[in-house]
C-alpha cells in the first residue's frame, strides 16, 4: 500500500444472537442428542455456549396458547415452554456479559407491570435485558386472558407503539440524583399515573427488538426499535428489507446505525461442502415426518387430507378458501396460489407429498464448511443484507456448539467479530448509545 492511498474503510462488525430452539417443527426432537427444552440446564447450556462465543444476546420466543389443528391440540411439533422473563432472570446468574432477550406480546400485557419486570431484569443482570415486542391480535390467543380477543388487527401496532413509549416514560422517570418522579400518561390505549418503583436501569432502557413484517410493523420498528428480528434471510430479500427499513429512519431523526437488522438463520456445517449438503438433506427429512407432511398440506388446503399417502402424489382437488383447520398459526394469504405452485413443482420434479413439503418449507440459510459459512455471513453483512444473525440451531441444547467452536474463530480471523467483550451491557455489545433521559415525557430524544 502506498503512503498516499486512503486506508480502507473498517469492515462492518457482525452481531450474533442465539435463539433457543423448540416449539416448532424445525427442532429435531427425535435425535438422540436432543435433550429437554424445559429443564433449566438446557437453557444454561445454550446461554453459556453463546457467551463462550461472545454473542450479543440469547433470545427466547413466545407463544401464549398451544396451537390446534382440526380442533385438537397440535401434537407433532415440540410444544411447551417456560415463561421467558423468569428463565432469563435465572440465566443472569450463570452468565456475565450475554444479553438476555425475551419475546413478550404488547397485546396481552400492561405497560406498568411489564416495564417493571424488564427493568428488574436489567438490574439483576447488570444491564443485559432486551424486549422483543410482538403484536399478537388473534382471539384464539385472547381466550387465555382478561383482555380477551378484543384488539383489532389495525390497532395492534398503535397499542405496541404507545406501550413502548409508556414503558420509556417509566424507565426515564427517576431523576439523575435517584428520586422517583410521578408520571401521568394519558393516551389512546393507556392511562398510567404514579411512581415507578425501580430506578433507571443500568443501560438506561432495556434494548427494544421488533419482529413483524407489515408496513405498519416496519414503521413501528423504524420509530421505536433498536433491533429488528426478521425472516428475510436470503441475500436479495435481505438487502431489499434492509434498504427499506433503514430508509425509514431519517423521518424519526435516527441514523442507520441506530437500528440493527438481524435475520433468523439456520446453519449446517460439514467437513466438506458435499458432507454439509448431505447432512442438511437428512435434517430436512427429519424435520418433515410423514405426519408433518400431511399436516403442512392440510394447512394449505384447509381440508382433511389424512387419507392421502405422504409418499404419493399431491391431491388434485383445490383448497377450500374458507377451510380453517389450524389455529395459532399465521394464515396463508392465497391457498389456491400456493397449492398450484406446489403441484407444479411436484409434477416438474416428480416429487411426493413429503418431498414437496421438504422442498418448499425447508429453508436452510447457511450450509457448508465452516470456511464457507464464515465467508458467506461476512459477505451478507458487508453488502448490507444484514447487520448480523439470530442463529436457530436444530438441536436442543447442544446445537450451537459446532458454530461457536468452528465458525466464530474464522469470523474473528476475518476481523469482523469481537475477540473479547468490550463492555458489559447489551447496548454496548450492539454499539448503541445509552438513551438520553426524556424528562419523563416519553418518546425518543
Amino acid at each position, binding site marked *: 500500500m502506498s503512503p498516499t492511498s486512503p486506508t480502507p474503510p473498517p469492515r462492518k462488525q457482525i452481531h450474533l444472537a442465539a435463539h433457543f430452539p423448540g416449539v416448532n417443527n424445525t427442532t429435531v*426432537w*427425535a435425535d438422540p442428542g436432543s435433550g429437554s427444552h*424445559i*429443564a*433449566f440446564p438446557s437453557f*444454561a447450556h445454550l446461554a453459556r455456549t453463546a457467551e463462550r462465543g461472545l454473542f450479543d444476546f440469547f433470545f427466547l420466543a413466545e*407463544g*401464549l*396458547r*398451544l396451537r390446534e389443528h382440526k380442533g385438537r*391440540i*397440535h*401434537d*407433532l*411439533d*415440540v*410444544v*411447551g*415452554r*417456560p*415463561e421467558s422473563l*423468569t*428463565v432469563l*432472570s*435465572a440465566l*443472569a*446468574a*450463570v452468565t456475565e456479559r450475554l444479553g438476555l432477550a425475551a419475546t413478550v406480546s404488547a397485546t*396481552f*400485557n*400492561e405497560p*406498568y*407491570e411489564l416495564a*417493571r*419486570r424488564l*427493568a*428488574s*431484569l436489567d*438490574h*439483576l*443482570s*447488570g444491564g443485559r435485558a432486551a424486549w422483543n415486542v410482538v403484536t399478537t391480535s388473534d382471539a384464539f390467543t385472547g*381466550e*387465555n*386472558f*382478561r*383482555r*380477551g380477543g378484543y384488539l383489532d388487527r389495525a390497532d395492534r401496532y398503535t397499542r405496541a407503539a404507545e406501550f413502548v413509549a409508556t414503558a420509556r416514560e417509566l424507565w426515564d422517570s427517576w431523576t439523575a440524583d435517584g428520586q*422517583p418522579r410521578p408520571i401521568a400518561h394519558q393516551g389512546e390505549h*393507556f*392511562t*398510567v*399515573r*404514579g*411512581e415507578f*418503583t*425501580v430506578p433507571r436501569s443500568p443501560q438506561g432502557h432495556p434494548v427494544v427488538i421488533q419482529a413483524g413484517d407489515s408496513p405498519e410493523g416496519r414503521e413501528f420498528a423504524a420509530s421505536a426499535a433498536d433491533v429488528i428480528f426478521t425472516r428475510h434471510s436470503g441475500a436479495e430479500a435481505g438487502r431489499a428489507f434492509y434498504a427499506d427499513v433503514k430508509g425509514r429512519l431519517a423521518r424519526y431523526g435516527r441514523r442507520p446505525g441506530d437500528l440493527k437488522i438481524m435475520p433468523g438463520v439456520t446453519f449446517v456445517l460439514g467437513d466438506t461442502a458435499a458432507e454439509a449438503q448431505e447432512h442438511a438433506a437428512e435434517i430436512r427429512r427429519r424435520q418433515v415426518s*410423514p*405426519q*408433518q407432511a400431511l399436516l403442512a398440506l392440510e394447512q394449505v388446503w384447509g381440508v382433511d387430507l389424512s387419507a392421502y399417502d405422504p409418499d404419493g402424489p399431491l391431491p388434485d382437488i383445490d383448497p377450500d378458501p374458507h377451510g380453517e383447520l389450524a389455529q395459532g398459526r399465521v394464515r396463508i394469504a392465497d391457498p389456491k396460489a400456493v397449492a398450484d405452485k406446489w403441484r407444479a413443482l411436484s409434477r416438474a420434479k416428480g416429487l411426493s407429498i413429503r418431498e414437496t413439503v421438504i422442498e418448499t418449507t425447508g429453508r436452510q440459510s447457511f450450509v457448508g464448511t465452516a470456511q464457507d459459512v464464515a465467508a458467506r455471513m461476512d459477505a451478507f453483512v458487508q453488502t448490507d443484507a444484514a447487520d448480523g444473525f439470530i442463529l436457530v440451531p436444530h438441536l436442543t441444547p447442544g446445537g450451537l456448539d459446532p458454530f461457536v467452536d468452528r465458525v466464530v474463530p474464522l469470523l474473528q480471523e476475518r476481523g469482523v467479530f469481537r475477540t473479547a467483550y468490550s463492555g458489559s451491557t447489551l447496548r454496548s455489545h450492539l454499539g448503541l448509545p445509552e438513551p438520553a433521559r426524556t424528562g419523563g415525557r416519553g418518546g425518543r430524544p
Partner: protein
Amino acid sequence: MSAPRPPLRLAVALDAPPGSGAPVPYDARHFVALARLAERGGLDFVTLGDSFARPGLDASAVLARVAPATEHLGLVPTVTTTHTEPFHVSTAVATLDWVSRGRAGWAVAVSTTEADAALFGRRPAAPPAEVWQEAGEVADVVARLWDSWEDDAEIRDRASGRFIDRDKVHHVDFTGSSFTVRGPSIVPRPPQGRPVTLVEVPPAAGPADAPGAGDTADVSDRAVREVAAAHADVALVRADDPQTAGAALAELLARARALGRDPDLLLVLASLPVELAGPADAAGLAELLADWYAAGAADGFHLRPADPAHDLALLVDGTVPALRDRGLRRPGRPGGTLRDHLGLPRPASRYAHA
C-alpha cells in the same frame, strides 16, 4: 399412640419491613448473599414481599435470579392477583419451579389501593372482600393450569411422530367473576406438580354475629381466610401470643375441613417480627419458638427480621442450632423440593384419571 410430631417448619422474610428506613436493595448480590445465608441455616424457605407501588424490584424476578445460586432453599415471592393476568401468574410461578428444580412457591396478594389501580388504569380500586374473592379464583385457575399437562404428557413417540400425547393435555375452561381462561398452560407441569401456595391471613377470627360484623375490615378478613382454607398449602398468621395463633390455626383447619379438604395438607405458620441484639437473643428466640410449638400454636414459624442481613446471621448461627439441640429441626433434608422440606405430598393432576 400418636405419630411423632414433624419438625417445626422454619422460614424467613428477606425483605426489611416497610417503614424500617433501610435502603431499598436493587443489586442481585444483596439477595444472593441473604439467600445463601438462609440456605446455610437449613431454613425451609424464604419469602420476598412485593407490591406494585412499593419501591423495589419484581420479587419473582429476584428469586429466579437467586435460584441457580442456591441448591436447597425454598423460594416464595409475593405475587399480586388484582391487576395481573392469571395466565401469566401461573406460567411465571411454574417457571420458577422449573428453574429451581422444585423449590418454588408464591404468596397470594391483592391490590386494594387507588394508587395501584392508577398504575394500570384498567379498572378502579375495589373493596378488599371483592379482590380477595377474585384472588381465590386466580389461585384456583392457576392450580388448574399447573395440572393441565399431566406429568407424562411429553411422549416423543418416533413411530407416530407425536411429541406429546394430546389426551394428557387439557383445556381448563375456567370462568371466574372477572375473567375466563381457556387453557391449557404453555408450561408443562412443574416439578412439584403444584408449587406451594401461601396466604397470609389476619389473626383474629370474629364470629359472624359478633359486634362489628359486617364492617369492611371484618368481611375482608373472612374473605382472606376463605381463600387460605380453600387454596393455601401454607397459611401465615401474624400473632402476638400463642393463644391467638392457636385459635387462628384451629379456625383455619375447621374451615378447610368444612370445604372437604384434608386438614393435614394445610400448614399454619406463625409469622413473627424479630429483632436480635446478639447471640443471647437468638437463643431466647429458640426457647420462645419451642414453647409456642409445644403449645400447638403453629406448625412452624415465619420470621420477619427488622434488619435481614444482621438478624439472619444470628438466626442461622444461634436460633437454628438451639432448635436442633432440642430435636425440633432435623440436621439433613428429607428431599429436594419445597414440598419435601415441608412434609407436603406432591399432588396428582386432577385431570389424570382413566
